[in-house]
């Protein structure tokens, strides 16, 4: 009990500390000062009156949302005696694995640098700056020769690393036995079973209305949809993050999604946010980074070739190039197992004073990275707002999909959850695929790393991401991956090779996400 209180006060202290530096703090102060001129505010009851004023003017809600967002993003503090790296990742072998993975990435990046004799960063000549500024809105028309560049890594390479992950304190045993996990992931982590998932995702139950099921053409809108839309408008009017988060668990109506997501992520697109974005833009225009080429290459390889997202090519550059310059992204490394790579000014290698993070945001894009942004282009068309939403989605969720950690939403846990679900509930299918050399994770890994972006139809993808936001967890990705296998189980039982299994699962664009999740979680006899 005592410890819990200690934890709470620590949390409060940290949040107060963080909010003190924010623009919200100064805005609140300004509002409070302005309110002094208000005749209703009396000197004798100053404190109470100002509190009332902030409540009625809606500023309290904003503060509440900010606190809520802090609580969600930052993990609760560890025991005061624990070393600081525990906040990043409590398991030493995971930290070590992440460290050596980062070294590999950096080595590959450096060797590309030397091979092509391109510096990591350089200032653009004035003429080039002007040119870039002119075509800022149509960067996709540019066709630079990128044949020499290659993505630093692809999900496949990352899977190899995860497969070789071992806990040194755990006796794996070379002989396969019933105790062994038959999948590719061999680390012991606690993952949820179906009863626990049922409890967690209780709002997806069969008797609860869902957008993505109960809004289909056969169901009259009076039954669920109209009422749900009405509640959604009410939630928006209230401007309450927590309520919005609860609400989207049943799905967002298309027309309200943009606003509801912004509310959950606590993004308001204030003038200073727009200014900040413009600043990042000018940074892009001034300096040319090697990662720019990687971003270009990735967009050209993925989103530009996508049937749905090709339209948004220009937006993707506008977001991703700015993202790579944004040093505020570095804050997420406080709770991420990853550490931003460092580079040194020429000639000063190894001297800490001359170290800078490279790229400035500390995130090296990989093959498929731009697909995290693409679906958001469906919802937001002002680049600055789109940018903020993406950044917030990244520091809340997406970073976990390409770093090694033991977090329940981390990719390792997701893989393990997927394999465990499949092994427990479709043992025959799992065994069959394993026997023919088509480990299910080899197929589903890329879906999960990209959060299914580019695999599902856009409307379905947005319904899925509704639930990610609603439950503040990525576990739904692993459940969906398992549900897809269950859905195509009959066809998969007939295949005899990895290629054939991949062919069966090559096209997910016709799948309906919500029925699949619901059936897998709630209508399967366990």
């Amino acid at each position: 009990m005592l410890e819990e209180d200690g934890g709470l006060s620590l949390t409060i202290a940290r949040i107060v500390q963080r909010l003190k530096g924010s623009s919200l703090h100064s805005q609140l102060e300004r509002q409070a000062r302005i309110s002094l001129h208000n005749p209703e505010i009396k000197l004798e009851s100053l404190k109470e009156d100002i509190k009332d004023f902030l409540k009625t003017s809606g500023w309290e809600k904003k503060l509440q949302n900010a606190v809520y967002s802090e609580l969600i993003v930052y993990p609760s503090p560890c025991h005061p005696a624990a070393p600081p790296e525990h906040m990043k990742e409590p398991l030493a072998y995971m930290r070590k694995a992440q460290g050596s993975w980062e070294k590999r990435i950096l080595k590959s990046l450096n060797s590309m640098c030397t091979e092509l004799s391109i510096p990591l960063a350089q200032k653009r000549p004035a003429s080039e700056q002007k040119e870039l500024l002119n075509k800022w809105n149509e960067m996709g028309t540019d066709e630079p020769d990128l044949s020499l560049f290659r993505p630093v890594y692809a999900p496949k390479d990352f899977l190899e690393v995860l497969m070789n992950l071992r806990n040194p304190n755990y006796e794996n045993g070379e002989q396969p036995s019933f105790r062994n996990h038959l999948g590719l992931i061999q680390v012991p982590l606690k993952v949820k079973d179906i009863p626990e998932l049922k409890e967690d995702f209780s709002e997806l139950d069969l008797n609860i209305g869902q957008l993505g099921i109960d809004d289909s053409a056969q169901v009259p809108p009076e039954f669920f949809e109209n009422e749900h839309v009405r509640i959604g408008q009410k939630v928006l009017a209230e401007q309450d993050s927590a309520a919005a988060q609860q609400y989207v668990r049943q799905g967002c109506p298309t027309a309200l999604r943009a606003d509801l997501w912004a509310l959950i992520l606590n993004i308001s697109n204030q003038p200073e946010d727009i200014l900040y974005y413009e600043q990042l833009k000018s940074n892009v225009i001034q300096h040319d980074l090697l990662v720019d080429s990687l971003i270009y290459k990735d967009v050209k390889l993925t989103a530009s070739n996508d049937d749905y997202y090709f339209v948004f090519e220009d937006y993707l550059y506008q977001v991703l190039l700015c993202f790579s310059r944004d040093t505020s992204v570095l804050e997420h490394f406080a709770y991420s197992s990853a550490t931003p790579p460092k580079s040194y000014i020429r000639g000063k290698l190894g001297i800490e004073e001359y170290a800078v993070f490279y790229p400035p945001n500390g995130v090296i894009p990989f093959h498929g990275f731009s697909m995290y942004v693409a679906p958001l282009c469906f919802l937001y068309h002002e680049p600055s707002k789109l940018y903020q939403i993406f950044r917030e989605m990244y520091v809340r969720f997406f970073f976990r999909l390409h770093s090694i950690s033991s977090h329940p939403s981390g990719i390792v846990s997701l893989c393990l959850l997927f394999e465990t679900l499949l092994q427990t509930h479709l043992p025959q299918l799992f065994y069959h695929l394993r026997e023919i050399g088509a480990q299910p994770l080899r197929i589903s890994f890329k879906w999960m790393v990209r959060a299914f972006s580019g695999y599902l139809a856009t409307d379905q993808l947005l319904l899925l991401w509704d639930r990610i936001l609603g439950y503040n967890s990525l576990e739904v990705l692993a459940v969906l991956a398992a549900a897809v296998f269950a859905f195509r189980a009959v066809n998969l039982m007939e295949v005899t090779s990895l290629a054939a299994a991949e062919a069966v699962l090559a096209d997910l664009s016709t799948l309906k996400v919500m029925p699949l999740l619901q059936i897998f979680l709630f209508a399967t006899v366990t």
Partner: protein
Amino acid sequence: METARPGRPAAWRSWRPPLPTSRREQSSARRSMEGSGWAALPVLPAVGPPRFPSRRPSAALASASSAASPGPSWTCCAAGPAGSRRGTRRSGISSGVMSVGFGRILTTCTWRSTFAFATFEITMSSDKPSVCVNIPCLGKGSTWEPDALLHSVPSLVNTNKSVTLENNKTSCGTLGGLVKVQTFPLLSRKNYLVKNLKRFRKQLEREAGKLEAARCDFFPKTFELPSEYHLFVEEFRKKPGTTWIMKPVGRSQGKGIFLFRKLKDIFDWKMDGGRTNEQKDETQIETYVVQRYIENPYLIGGRKFDLRVYILVTSYSPLKAWLYRDGFARFSSMRFTLNSIDDHYVHLTNVAVQKTAPDYDPEKGCKWMIQQLRQYLTAKHGTGLMEVLFADMDNIFIKSLQSVQKVIISDKRCFELYGYDILIDQDLKPWLLEVNASPSLAASSQEDYELKCHLLEDTLHVVDMEGRLTGKEKRVGGFDLIWNDGPVSRGGNLGALVNGNFVANTHLGCFNDRKKQLKELFGNLPAQQTA
């Protein structure tokens, strides 16, 4: 929810249409096609079921062919009323093959001695898989000439002239392997459309007042050249700085289109045009329409797009029109800007033009299904504005059809499928750009391919040559009846009101669960007939 099935093959383009029995036959068939002006079409082996993409049921054909009985039949290659070997009676062959053109789709009809079935094999192009539509024809037992099919399906009719290679070069106006088919020209010829709309607007103004007539203002200011040249110049002088677009009336797919801002540009064109016309045809000067160019199109990701929507008219008097639920938005591959009007790739969203753009990537297709567009716009502008936009579009369809209603000689057995090109501007007002009869049915992607196959199947369902429908249906497959001598409402009976409000029976851009609907509609019939 979809049914479990193997995933779509990675490279669907590598599918092949059913091969004829031997390679030599194929090449000879192709040669003879070329000679007659028809694009290459593999001749079906007598009754073998064609190879389908794995999930298409081929039971229909298989069962039809197994019931083959020897008897007389018709063989007709190289269709075309004139100059073709038509109706050669051969005995001992159980079924015949006829090829007719359907826009750019080639249709092979195989029918049985009893004339109970016609199988339309629709081949998008020579390297894509074909799809079969198996329909029982007319009543069983009735005698039936091959021409009956041609006349009951006007879109299938070849031009009166026999299309030969020489003709292609000269007056026919068909180019590069495209086949000209006969259509009612009144709506699709650009200048006629303009004339009819102007006339209709005047008539409405007289009969129903200015307000009603204003509902016809969905067509940008348009003049016909050279006949209305003076009117045009007057308008041109009134609004200097406007951009205008010139389109040749008789051509399609973006051929011969250009933009201009100065009158001088047309003089240049007149000079050029004169010369090329001389080469082609001394007697005829090509008519153009000049149209105010919409300078504030709605942009998505900085790109301009237009919509292609399909309308099926099964009768003009009374007017009976069906709206297809699917359609697509075609994106320009370049970013939209008015600064470089010479760069005409920017402005035309016709796929046929886009294909020649230097960075055109056939993999991309540059298309969105209309459902996606509707979802995108709803996410940005809310449900209310979308309903207004789509209601405005319905208005366009109806008014444009009404404008030509009186001038078209209606035949009970005729039907026409129109492709409407709609542009949306930044104020979310839809504009009618063009109406195409025999719209292109070539596919640029798997999704597109499916759309067009389903469209064709449903067209044939609505046309109902088998007589399976009662005539009271408000929906057949993906088609919704939007006009039946008056607006059609959603819900139970024709003309019934839903909660006292009139809700139009339009579902453009809504979920198209046509398979299920067809099953319900034709449920009592054997599964094979629902194709």
